[in-house]
């Protein structure tokens, strides 16, 4: 039960000219599951290590419930980090690995054995206590690593790319396990990932970090509907950016004008909208005539490239709706005002 706060956290590695992490400030409420999202090398793992106490920041502060923990050694912070490659101790059995944290806390042996058995049950590996880590599959190793971290009931749990080494079907299983254990125990959890889908499905809140700077910190859906800038929108798969001027609730583009939602910004900027939010057919507002330039069938969806005056936009349609559409055809579409957003330049 810990509120984690990062204050202007900065790391410049010795010999580097650019900071790996530049004044990152973040409030992570008690018991929440937060994702640090960003491409590899953006400073995510650096941030985790500084929270865990494994790396000293160049400047800035890390506080737990308002108290700075920078002077606390890693073993006294109440933070457990689960590394991407699990790092199970190869010389110890699975049970000894899980019980390691309690042994370091001088818990007596019968108590450790009891707690280890409970944890093995919890991660659904009840019979594997005597095995060596090398005898386990990747998914099993991941669960042992999780059990080893949770057994000490940390105040803060850090997960480094928790799903990245797993097969597709294991990822969903693991995601559900992490989510349910985290909610059950109410541990403030921070995980890093480069995969926006992973961040969206697992996290309460997502912090997007690009080039060592935090771009946006919000609930996952906000990144899709209301991105702060083009880079953020692009990171989440945004394709449509149209240059123009916004004012009085209307966006003026080369091909015509569009009605905007009330909270949209005004001034010169770029109009953006999700390809899946474009509707086929006409409506009362924002109806446009486009020409189909290209059609790509993707199984569960069909992607259309549309020519809209000088602009090319992407549209994602239901494959059934798009079945009879062919390149060269004219197509009537409409953009609901609530699906539009203006990025100021």
């Amino acid at each position, binding site marked *: 039960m810990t509120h984690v706060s990062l204050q202007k956290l900065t790391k410049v590695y010795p010999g580097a000219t650019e900071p790996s992490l530049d004044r990152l400030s973040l409030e992570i409420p008690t018991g929440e599951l937060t994702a640090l999202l960003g491409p590899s090398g953006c400073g995510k793992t650096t941030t985790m*290590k500084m929270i*865990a*106490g*494994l790396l000293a920041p160049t400047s800035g502060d890390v506080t737990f419930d308002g108290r700075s923990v920078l002077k606390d*050694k*890693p*073993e006294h912070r109440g*933070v*457990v*980090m689960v*590394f991407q*490659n699990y*790092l199970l*101790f*190869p*010389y110890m059995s699975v049970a000894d690995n899980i019980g*390691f*944290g309690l042994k*370091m*806390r001088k818990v007596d042996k019968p108590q450790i054995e009891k707690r280890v058995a409970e944890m093995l049950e919890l991660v659904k590996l009840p019979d594997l206590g005597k095995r060596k880590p090398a005898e386990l599959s990747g998914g099993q190793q991941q669960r042992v690593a999780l059990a*080893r*971290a949770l057994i*000490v009931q940390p105040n803060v749990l850090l997960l480094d790319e928790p799903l990245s080494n797993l097969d597709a079907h294991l990822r969903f299983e693991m995601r559900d396990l992490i989510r349910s254990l985290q909610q059950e125990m109410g541990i403030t959890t921070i995980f890093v990932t480069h995969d926006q889908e992973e961040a969206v499905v697992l996290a309460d809140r997502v912090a997007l970090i690009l080039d060592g700077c935090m771009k946006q910190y919000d609930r996952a859906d906000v990144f899709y509907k209301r991105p702060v800038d083009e880079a953020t929108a692009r990171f989440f798969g945004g394709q449509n950016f149209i240059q123009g001027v916004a004012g009085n609730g209307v966006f003026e583009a080369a091909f015509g004008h569009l009605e905007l939602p009330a909270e949209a910004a005004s001034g010169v900027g770029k109009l953006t909208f999700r390809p899946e939010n474009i509707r086929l057919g006409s409506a009362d507002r924002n109806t446009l005539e486009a020409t189909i330039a290209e059609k790509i069938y993707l199984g569960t969806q069909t992607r259309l490239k549309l020519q809209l005056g000088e602009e090319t936009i992407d549209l994602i349609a239901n494959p059934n709706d798009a079945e009879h559409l062919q390149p060269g055809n004219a197509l009537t579409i409409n953009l609901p005002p609530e699906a539009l957003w203006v990025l100021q330049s």
Partner: protein
Amino acid sequence: MVGRESIGIRSFRFLTGALLIIWLVLPLIPLAIWSFARGWFFPSLLPKTWSMKAWEYTFSDTAGVIDSLWLTVGISLAATLLSILVGVPAGRALGMYKFRGKEFVELLILAPIIVPGIAVVLGIHSVFISMGLNNTVSGVILVHLIPTLPYMVLVMAGIFANYDPAFEAQARSLGASPLKTFWYVTLPAIMPGIIVGGLFAFLVSWSQYILTLLIGGGRVVTLPLLLFNFATSGRNDITGAIGMIYILPGIIILLLTARHLSGRSGAVGGFGQI
């Protein structure tokens, strides 16, 4: 590997193995025979009369062989222990970190293997005299570190070059103090290296002659010194008996640690693996 080799390769392997054993074991046979002989002269193939006298003398109180044996064991163990204490951190630094002048440090550490001991021991002798370390057991132990350390550091550098320090970060994160992290996580991982390096160090110290003779000043009489005395005074029977005792630790240690000496262990890679 097994079963798919041609007969040629198998017989070649058998031949080299047999040659190696002959090369190593054959010279020991006359030594063993001598220790039970009472007079063995050309051209007899075997001694005319047999005797246990050499062995009786060797184990008697007057010979001092047993005292010398324990002294040698103690010196070699102490030199091995000190080599481990110095060699593990030094090997870690060389194997895991990049730093300015690393190649020079590597060269310095390897130098005692390249430079003959006798070339430097005279200088060391005068330094030890000024420090009061000459003619003492601690002086001998200390001077043995010169030839033992390179082996220890070399082996440990190879081990640490293939070692992932993230395991230590993981242990700290799980609540282990630095000391407990070393004990439970680092030590088990580097144990093969400590065993192999320690074995080298022990045997190198065990076979020191010149360094012991000069620094010990004749007061610290280890087994090789005693052996040399008997060998030069023409007592082949006693030389044979002491010689048998002298080679014993090498054989015992080799048998105990043979599995760590296979080429697959990172412990025998040395600087080549850094």
